[in-house]
């Protein structure tokens, strides 16, 4: 066993796992904080919706599409100057978070828009008929009704961010991806590669299971 995993530096793996956790956790938090309002706006300004605004929708939709169509590996590089401006460095755990949010937020925003569209129009109409204003319709009816879908969206976003975070190792982002690239790939330490991949798989599995449980808990349909 020792011989088989001779290259594996366990304390290093521990630090890298923690770094991945922090990168995914922080970028997920900011992706949700930014993506949720963008998703709600996309929904509301869309065709035949409460605040129909074709121009606003087109602009917002375009920005989201641009960010989503840039391959993440390119986005990582393109974002470097912005990241340096924003937090002083483009390296390490902190340096990885801005590009992760730039990739995660628009992705999540679309998922929010989709789950809001799945709310029965009749429910919006009924809430309007009760004399609700737009704010009350959003917070009283739309978001609670779309909650299971939004939680499923958070799960998918989190898993996407795990793979994005691993990719950020390429530009010196830190975490398990960084370890896999520096040791597993560049130094041909297959054992390190296997361990990091195994840990990432476990991480994704745990996220998916937790997400599914939450969706089930909040689904009343």
């Amino acid at each position, binding site marked *: 066993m020792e011989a088989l995993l001779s290259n594996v530096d366990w304390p290093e793996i521990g630090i890298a796992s923690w770094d991945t956790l922090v990168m995914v956790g922080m970028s997920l938090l900011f992706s949700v904080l930014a993506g949720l309002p963008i998703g709600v706006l996309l929904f509301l300004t869309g065709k035949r919706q409460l605040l129909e605004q074709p121009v606003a929708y087109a602009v917002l939709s375009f920005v989201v599409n641009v960010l989503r169509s840039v391959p993440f590996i390119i986005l990582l590089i393109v974002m470097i100057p912005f990241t340096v401006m924003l937090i002083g460095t483009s390296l390490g755990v902190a340096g990885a978070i801005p590009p992760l949010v730039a990739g995660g937020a628009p992705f999540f925003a679309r998922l929010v828009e989709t789950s809001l569209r799945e709310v*029965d129009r*009749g*429910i919006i*109409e*009924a*809430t*309007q*008929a*009760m*004399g*609700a*204003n737009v704010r*009350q319709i959003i917070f*009283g*009816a739309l978001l*609670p*009704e779309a*909650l299971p879908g939004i939680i499923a969206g958070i799960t998918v976003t989190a898993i996407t961010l795990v793979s994005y975070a691993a990719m950020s190792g390429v530009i010196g982002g830190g975490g398990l991806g960084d370890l896999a690239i520096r040791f597993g790939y560049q130094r041909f330490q297959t054992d390190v590669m296997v361990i990091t991949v195994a840990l990432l798989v476990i991480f994704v599995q745990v996220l998916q299971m937790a997400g599914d449980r939450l969706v089930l808990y*909040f689904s*009343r*349909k």
Partner: protein
Amino acid sequence: MIVFDQVQKSYQVDGRAIPALHPTDMTIETGEVFGIVGHSGAGKSTLVRLINLLEPPTGGDIRIDGENITRYNAAELRAFRRKVGMIFQHFNLLSSKTVSDNIAFPMQLAGIYSKAEIRDRVQELLARVSLTDHATKYPSQLSGGQKQRVGIARALACRPTILLCDEATSALDPQTTQSVLRLLAEINKELGLTIVLITHEMDVVRRVCDRVAVMDAGRVVEMGAVSDVFLHPKHPTTRDFVFESESIDSEEMQEDLQKANGRILRLTFKGEATYQPLLGSVARASGVDFSILSGRIDHIKDTPYGQLTLSLIGGDLELAMSALEGADVHVEVVR
């Protein structure tokens, strides 16, 4: 009182105005149950949504108790809507809220009720619609009839003066329809609130409505007391609806009539006359023989009525007809 003054509604489709409701005048009295019947696409859904301005009219005025609601600003409109309850074909309950929370929802939105007030009112309404045992359930755990009763309780939460029913029984089975209609009739009597009900089933109108408007292609084609419209339909659309509700096949009926001999009369009895043993005595006095081609006895809201189609042979036909008319029976000569 709800007054429509030349109210019209059209939708813009590809730059062209498609009329959904042609200019319409209509008055709905306070405290009555007013039915609007029509096929899908006839404009009844639009008509009922004009009353709480879910659909703003493209012309004309809507006055409710003297106030022109089409001039309301956004805040006034929201306050006004709290006084107009609405129930829907597919209930439109919030699936994420319990029965109690669904009923409390409009009161919370209004923002003028204390927690204690809301709690008491919800209890009262749960009892009113016999759902006290289901207070903590979610809508998905209820049957269709129970869901609609939650819808009714929710619509009544802010003590509205008008209740709009959008095909409220169309998704329910006949038995459940009966119980929901009974509940609506009770509410109308006890709370004195005006009910405007749209439906494509004449039977629903017959059971609960005082007056009815029949719609066809964006126009009100016939309007009046349910007994008049139901027993003596004038417009072809109305006739279709009445026949449909009595499951009369008009072609079959024509065939039957052709086979019959003599004079054919349609007699309509209303109220007490329905229960009088009239035919026999008239036949004896006038010497006519009769055979019954079709007939039914039923109720329009609380009034019993009967309608018989007879063929009469021999005897003194004039005497028979005047005797029937003298006994408060409406006589219509079919052939």
